[in-house]
């Protein structure tokens, strides 16, 4: 599982994504990234890429639904578009029915598109307002030279009926339909060329709850009837839990956990998944509300954190080996470091800060000395110095920062495989893609992440 290579002969996997990357230029144009220096050679050029998708691997078996979940900005939609080759991948491969889509272009790629369709989030803007729904459904068939005119019309009507619309509405315009019905037209259009694989990018998030359930039920029925494989993207974990067979959790361009649905929801093994699950509100006032929320924003994908990308927000960052603090003291240090980074307080008095952040446990030894130093800087209003000490000597020393995690862990609830990119799981891991000795502080972030589930 550590190797990223040509597809293994897994007859069941319809789609295999291997180490897929998609980077965008942050700036473009002739002078992009040009900077002026006051020393020779005076002009330098550095380009900074947005690493929207940075080394993602997974399989989708025939007939299953893979749910893809994550906060906005984590690269879900970019991944979907890159998988379908709507975007050119920066590197990596996508094997669909044994062929590498990343290598294809022109006519062969166009023909492959017949088997892969997409449904978009906004049912309004994904339908041409000046076309009637019948011709909209027929359009993909036309593009792929399917059937004759009569045959297409008959098929369009049949599909409209299949998705729960009245075939009589063949001649209506999209504006005459409600949001849920428009999404059904989108479904019919995607189905028209008889695809094997449909990518659904937030197909129900624009709909009301009551309508959402209708569309989800229809999608499940159609999957059964036409033997479809879905890649289902949503930010709503309740929807994902309802429709998926397996679930991949994405964070900042990486898949951090992938497992069977029940396993992932009942036995999550990555702190990010845990946090996401805890953050979902339950529609029941007696549930006691949400717990342990994440703080801070998702870091920028231009310069993502080294090692585990979640470490800047993780409530369970591992203590660096060189220190010997109690668990409480280490948590306090982490919390204090993040507070300084966010400039979350104005207080500069060391004693007041101690009692505020280190009331129950104070680090001793080397760690204590470093903390004193940082507090001293804050007292003198040297925030940047304090921040530097705290992050360089504490946060960046953790194994979470120096090594990129990738572990396959045992599944407790199902027989499926369970992948979790978290160093907390290194002891129970069955296999790992972490190349321990080769990694040092300078390790390129995001390198060598591979997927256990293949």
């Amino acid at each position, binding site marked *: 599982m550590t190797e990223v290579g040509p597809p293994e002969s897994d007859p069941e996997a319809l789609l295999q994504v291997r180490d897929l990357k998609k980077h965008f230029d942050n700036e473009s144009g002739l002078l992009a990234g040009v900077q002026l220096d006051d020393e020779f050679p005076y002009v330098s050029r550095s380009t900074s890429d947005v690493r929207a998708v940075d080394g993602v691997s997974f399989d989708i078996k025939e007939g299953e639904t893979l749910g893809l979940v994550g*906060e*906005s*900005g984590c690269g879900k939609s970019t991944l979907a578009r890159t998988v379908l080759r709507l975007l050119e991948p920066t590197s990596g491969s996508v094997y669909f029915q044994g062929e590498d889509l990343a290598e294809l272009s022109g006519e062969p790629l166009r023909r492959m598109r017949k088997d892969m369709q997409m449904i978009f989030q906004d*049912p309004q803007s994904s339908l041409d307002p000046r076309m009637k729904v019948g011709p909209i459904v027929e359009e993909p068939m036309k593009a792929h030279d399917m059937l004759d005119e009569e045959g297409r019309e008959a098929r369009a009507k049949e599909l409209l009926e299949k998705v*729960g*619309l*009245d075939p009589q*509405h063949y001649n209506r315009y999209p504006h*005459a*339909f*409600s*949001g*849920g*019905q*428009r999404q*059904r037209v989108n479904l019919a259009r995607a189905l028209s060329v008889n695809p094997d694989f449909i990518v659904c990018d937030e197909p129900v998030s*624009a709909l*009301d*709850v*009551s*309508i*959402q*359930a*209708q569309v*989800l*039920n229809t999608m499940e029925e159609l999957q059964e009837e036409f033997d479809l494989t879905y890649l289902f993207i949503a*930010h*709503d*974990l*309740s*929807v994902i*839990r*309802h429709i998926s067979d397996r679930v991949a959790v994405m964070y900042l361009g990486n898949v951090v956990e992938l497992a069977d*649905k*029940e396993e992932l*929801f009942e036995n999550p093994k990555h702190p990010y998944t845990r*946090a*996401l*699950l805890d*953050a*979902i*509100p*339950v*529609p*029941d*006032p*007696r*549930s006691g*509300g*949400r717990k342990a*929320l*994440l*703080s*801070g*924003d998702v870091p920028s994908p231009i310069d993502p954190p080294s090692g585990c990308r979640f470490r800047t927000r993780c409530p369970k960052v591992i203590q660096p080996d060189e220190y010997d603090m109690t668990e409480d003291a280490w948590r306090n240090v982490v919390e204090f470091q993040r507070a300084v*980074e*966010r*400039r*979350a307080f*104005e207080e500069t008095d060391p004693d007041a800060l101690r009692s505020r952040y280190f009331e129950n446990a104070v680090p001793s030894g080397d760690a204590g000395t470093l903390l004193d130093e940082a507090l001293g800087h804050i007292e003198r209003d040297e925030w940047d110095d304090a921040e530097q000490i705290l992050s360089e000597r504490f946060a960046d020393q953790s194994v979470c920062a120096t090594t990129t995690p990738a572990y396959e862990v045992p599944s407790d609830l199902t027989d499926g495989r369970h992948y979790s990119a978290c160093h907390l799981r290194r002891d129970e891991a069955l296999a790992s893609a972490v190349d321990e000795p080769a990694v040092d502080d300078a390790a390129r972030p995001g390198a060598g992440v591979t997927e256990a589930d293949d």
Partner: protein
Amino acid sequence: MSEPLLSVRDLKTQFFTEDGTVRAVDGISFDVHEGEIVGLVGESGAGKSVATSSILRLVDSPGEIVGGEIEFKGETIFGLEEGDDGELRPRDEMLTEEEMRKRIRGREIAIIFQDPMESLNPVFTVGGQLREFIEINRDLGAEEAKEEAIDMLREVGIPAPESRYDEYPHQFSGGMRQRVLIAMALACQPDLIIADEPTTALDVTVEGEILEMVTELQDKYDTSFIWVTHDMSVVAEICDRVNVMYLGEIIEQAEVDDLFHDTKHPYTSALLDSMPRPDRTVDELRPIQGVMPEAIDPPAGCRFHSRCPEAREVCREVHPEPRELSDEGEAPHTAACVKHDAFGVGYDESPPIETEATGGFSAGFTETGGEAE
């Protein structure tokens, strides 16, 4: 209970369009007490947003508030009386447009909208907008207002507020922009904040943080909230009392626990049943059949009867007004459904009717097209 902070009685707001009169809000009544979070929930098109704009008298032509009373802290925001010529005219004590603008909006009643990008001006800095708002509404000098603005930004959890003060809205993430709007709403320490789907566009994690922050700030400032949302989970989490709206009417009104565990209206139960659950796997969802009819031509009788699984002949004929259904000593719980004995219109004897929900045609068709949000 003490005198309510805000009391809305039989409020009616209509839009006069070429196709006819849209009864967006059709006779709703509810109270908001001090320090309370009141939920207003319903699907899109139920009239939630029109109801809240009516409270601030922000309804624009072709819309008009045509009836009802809105009282806020003993003052009349809206009220009509019959004049000598038999025409309805505004009562004398009704606040003038200028008083509304200068005294009520922003100072006494603030509003937070769903889309923070549309509520912030993209060409001014975030800090500048917040400072201006504080300067005007609290009569502070520019320097003091700036300090206050930075304090407010820190209060709502904006990291490094001094440096973020000079940034523009596009440099903030969605959650942070929403925090800025909350800071703005709280800046004048109003008595009532109307939150119109403020977390709908946000991720669950961010939504969680914001709801937690709102609860904390609410404790601190003792502000009342009207929380408009379509999300039952949000309602369950923060509201004290809930009003469920359907097609311009409030069809159920109860304390949050009663609403979820002693549901009295079929629409509310259908809404709860149709949601996928995060805490357990549900094999099949039970959606509400059909779509909400147009407010321009609402169904006769009970407005929900066309989609109701429990509809009977009598539902088509009798239009139920909300009635108090709780037993004595219990918290008030009203619902507008004739299946309860309190209505006494012979529901039990009435034959069931065929509707979309009871086995008719699935996925109804709207002639003019409902808008999805």
